C-alpha cells in the first residue's frame, strides 16, 4: 500500500512540486494527498492512514473556534507546510558562534550548560555528547521495569494494538478544530505505557527523547498508565525554544486506569514574539486525561511563552473516587495573549478536583482563566475547589476570569475563590529599601505569588521555573 501511495504522490506532485519532494519538504498547502504523503513518509499501516483521513475530512467540515479571548489574524492553513524532514547536519548551525547571540544570552541567564545550549539551538554535532550515554542507561532501566517510552511513530509500528485501542480514546479526532487538524497531520510525539502495578523508576522527560527531530509543530502524546501504576512526565524545558513554524497544535491524551496515577508537568516557553508581538508562536493545545476508579491525574503547567496560548488541560473523572488536579501559572508580557484553564468533568461518585490557577499579566498583555467544572447527575458527593488569582504588573495589562460551573447533582459541592491584585508600590518600596533592584523585586514577588503551583513541580523544574519567570519579566518594570 505505502508504495502505491508513494507512487501516487510523486505522480501527483510531479508537476509542481518535484524539487520539494527531493528536498523532503512539502510545499505549503493541505489536502488529502498531503495527509497520505505524511503517512507514507512514516511507513504507516493503512489503518493509521484511514484514521488520519477521517480526521482530515472532519476538520474540513469544522470551523476555527472564536470564543477564546485572544485576537489574531486568521490562520491561512494553506500557507503552511505540513511536512519537512529533519535538517541535515550541513543545514544546521555548525557551532554556537552561528547561533543568535540574543538566544545565547538567555541560555546564559538560565544557567544552561554549554553542551545543552548546543542541543537546544540545534547545532550540528557529530561527536557523541554526554547525554547520549545517559539516554542509553535511561532506556535500559525503563525496559527492565517494563515501561515503554518511545516516539509515537515507533509505537504505531511496534505496538499497533495499544495505539489502536488508546489513540483518540480521550481526545477523539473530531473533538475540536485543532485536535482534528493534529489528528490528520501529526508529525510525531511520545508514547508512554506503564504496565500494571509498576511505579516508573524515574521521571520521564521529553528532553531524553533526543533522537526525534521536528516533532514540535503537531505533536501527539499518549500516556497509558495501567492499573495501580504510577508515572511522572515532564514536557518541554525552560530554555526558550525557537521554531520556524508559527502554528502549533498539539494533542496530549492520558489514560489512568484503576488506581493509577499520572503527574504531567509542563514548562512551555515557545518564542513569544518580539516586544511588538511579531513572530511569536500560536499555541493551540488539547490536553485531556481520563481517570478510572480511584485514579488520579495531576496537571501542572508553567506557561510563559507563545504569542497566543489556547490551552485547557482537562480531567474526565469517570471512575468513582477519582481525583483531578490542575495547577497553573500563566505569565504574559508585552503583547502576549493567553486563554488557559481547565475542565473538570465529574462523572463518578465521590470524585474530587482541585484547581489552582495563577495568572500574571505585565506589559500590554492579556491573560484569561477559563475553566469548567461540571458535576454530572451521577456524581454523588463530588467536590471541587477552585482558586484563581491574578496579579497585574503595571496598568496597561489585563486579567480575566471565566469560570463555568454546571452542577446537576445536589450532593456535589463546588467552591470557587478568585482574587485580583497588583504588585503594590509598598511591596516594591520595601524591597528597594532592602537593596533589591526593581526587576529582582518583581520577580521575587511574582515567584511568591506562584509558590503554591511551583511546589507541585518536580524539584529541579521548580528552580528553573523561578528563573524563567525572572527572565520572562525582564523589561516589565521601568
Amino acid at each position, binding site marked *: 500500500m505505502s508504495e502505491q501511495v508513494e507512487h501516487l504522490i510523486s505522480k501527483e506532485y510531479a508537476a509542481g512540486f518535484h524539487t520539494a519532494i527531493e528536498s523532503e519538504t512539502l510545499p505549503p498547502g493541505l489536502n488529502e494527498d498531503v495527509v497520505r504523503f505524511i503517512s507514507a513518509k512514516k511507513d504507516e499501516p493503512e489503518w493509521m492512514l484511514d484514521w488520519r483521513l477521517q480526521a482530515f475530512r472532519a476538520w474540513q467540515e469544522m470551523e476555527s473556534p472564536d470564543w477564546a479571548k485572544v485576537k489574531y489574524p486568521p490562520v491561512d492553513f494553506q500557507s503552511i507546510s505540513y511536512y519537512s524532514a529533519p535538517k541535515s547536519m550541513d543545514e544546521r548551525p555548525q557551532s554556537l558562534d552561528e547561533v543568535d547571540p540574543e538566544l545565547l544570552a538567555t541560555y546564559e541567564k538560565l544557567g544552561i550548560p554549554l553542551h545543552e545550549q548546543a542541543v537546544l539551538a540545534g547545532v550540528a554535532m557529530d561527536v557523541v555528547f554526554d547525554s547520549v550515554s545517559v539516554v542509553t542507561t535511561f532506556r535500559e532501566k525503563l525496559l527492565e521495569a517494563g515501561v515503554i517510552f518511545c516516539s509515537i511513530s515507533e509505537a504505531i509500528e511496534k505496538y499497533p494494538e495499544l495505539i489502536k485501542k488508546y489513540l483518540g480514546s480521550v481526545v477523539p479526532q473530531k473533538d475540536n478544530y485543532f485536535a482534528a487538524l493534529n489528528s490528520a497531520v501529526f508529525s510525531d510525539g511520545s508514547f508512554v505505557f506503564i504496565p500494571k502495578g509498576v511505579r516508573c523508576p524515574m521521571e520521564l522527560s521529553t528532553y531524553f527523547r533526543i533522537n526525534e527531530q521536528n516533532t514540535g509543530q503537531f505533536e501527539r502524546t499518549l500516556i497509558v498508565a495501567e492499573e495501580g501504576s504510577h508515572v511522572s512526565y515532564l514536557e518541554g524545558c525552560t530554555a526558550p525554544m525557537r521554531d520556524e513554524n508559527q502554528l502549533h497544535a498539539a494533542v496530549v491524551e492520558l489514560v489512568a486506569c484503576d488506581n493509577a496515577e499520572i503527574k504531567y508537568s509542563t514548562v512551555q516557553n515557545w518564542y513569544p514574539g518580539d516586544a511588538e508581538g511579531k513572530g511569536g508562536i500560536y499555541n493551540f493545545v488539547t490536553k485531556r486525561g481520563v481517570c478510572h476508579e480511584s485514579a488520579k491525574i495531576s496537571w501542572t503547567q508553567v506557561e510563559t511563552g507563545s504569542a497566543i496560548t489556547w490551552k485547557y488541560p482537562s480531567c474526565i473523572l469517570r471512575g468513582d473516587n477519582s481525583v483531578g488536579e490542575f495547577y497553573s501559572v500563566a505569565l504574559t508580557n508585552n503583547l502576549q495573549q493567553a486563554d488557559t484553564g481547565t475542565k473538570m468533568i465529574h462523572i463518578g461518585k465521590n470524585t474530587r478536583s482541585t484547581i489552582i490557577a495563577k495568572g500574571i499579566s505585565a506589559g500590554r498583555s492579556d491573560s484569561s482563566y477559563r475553566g469548567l467544572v461540571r458535576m454530572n447527575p451521577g456524581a454523588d458527593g463530588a467536590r471541587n475547589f477552585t482558586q484563581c488569582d491574578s496579579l497585574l504588573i503595571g496598568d496597561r495589562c489585563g486579567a480575566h476570569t471565566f469560570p463555568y460551573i454546571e452542577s446537576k447533582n445536589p450532593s456535589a459541592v463546588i467552591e470557587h475563590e478568585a482574587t485580583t491584585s497588583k504588585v503594590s508600590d509598598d511591596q516594591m518600596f520595601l524591597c*528597594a*529599601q532592602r*537593596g533589591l*533592584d526593581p526587576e*529582582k523585586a518583581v520577580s521575587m514577588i511574582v515567584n511568591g505569588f*506562584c509558590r503554591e503551583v511551583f511546589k507541585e513541580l518536580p524539584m529541579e523544574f521548580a528552580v528553573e521555573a523561578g528563573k524563567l519567570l525572572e527572565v520572562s519579566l525582564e523589561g516589565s518594570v521601568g
Partner: protein
Amino acid sequence: MLRINNLHASVEDKEILKGLSLEIKPGEVHAIMGPNGAGKSTLGNVLSGRDGYEVSSGTVEFKGANLFDLAVEERAREGVFLAFQYPVEIPGVSNMEFLKVSVDTVRKHKGLPALSSVEFMKLARTTSQKVKLDQAFLKRGVNEGFSGGEKKRNEILQMMLLEPSLCILDETDSGLDIDALQTVADGVNAMRNKDRSFIVVTHYQRLLDYIVPDYVHVLADGKIVKSGDKSLAKELEAKGYGWLEGGVA
C-alpha cells in the same frame, strides 16, 4: 554622616517639611519627637527615597555625597535603613529567602564575600533569637500573618543582618507591649557603635528610657523647633507640645 540643610518636601502638592535642618555625626542617636502631622514619618520617607515625596529645595548630604543622586536601592546599599512603621506583607516569599537576597545584595555592594546558604541560615537563626522571633517565622512569607509585634521584631532582625550605617526607626515602638519594646531597644543598643547613627522617630518618651538618645529634637509644622538632650523628652512628656509650637511657629 548626615547633613540636612533647609529641606522642603511635599506630598501631593502639600508642603510637609518646611525648612528642616539637622546634622548627625557617626555614632550619634537622635530622637525626633513631635505632634501628629508634624512631618516625622515624611522625613524617613524622604531620606529613604519613597515615591510620591517631592523635594522642592534644600540639600541632604550622606557620607559627603548628595543623597538625592541615589535611587532607593542604592541608598539602601550605601547603608540607609528604614524600619517601617507598617511593614508590608509579601505573600509566598519566604522570610529567609528575602533576607538572604537582601543581605547578598548589600554585601556585594560593600565588596564583602557572599555568605553560603549554610552560613547565612546560621546567622539568621542566631540573630532571630536575639530579637526573640521564633525560627518558624523565617520560613513563613515576609510578614505574612505576623502580629504587629512580630513585624517590628522582623524589622529589627533585618536591620541587624544588614548592618546599615544610618538606621531610621519610624515609630517602631507604636503598638508594642513592654516586652517587645525591650527587645527592640536591646537590638538597637547592641548595634550602637562609633560609626553607626540612628534617627529614632517616636511619639512617646517611653522608648527613650530604653534607647537613650544623644539628642532630642522636636519637629513641629515641618521644622525642628527645639533641640536638647534626653531631658527634653522628659519635659515634653510632662508639658506636651503646646508650649513650643506657640512660641516658635
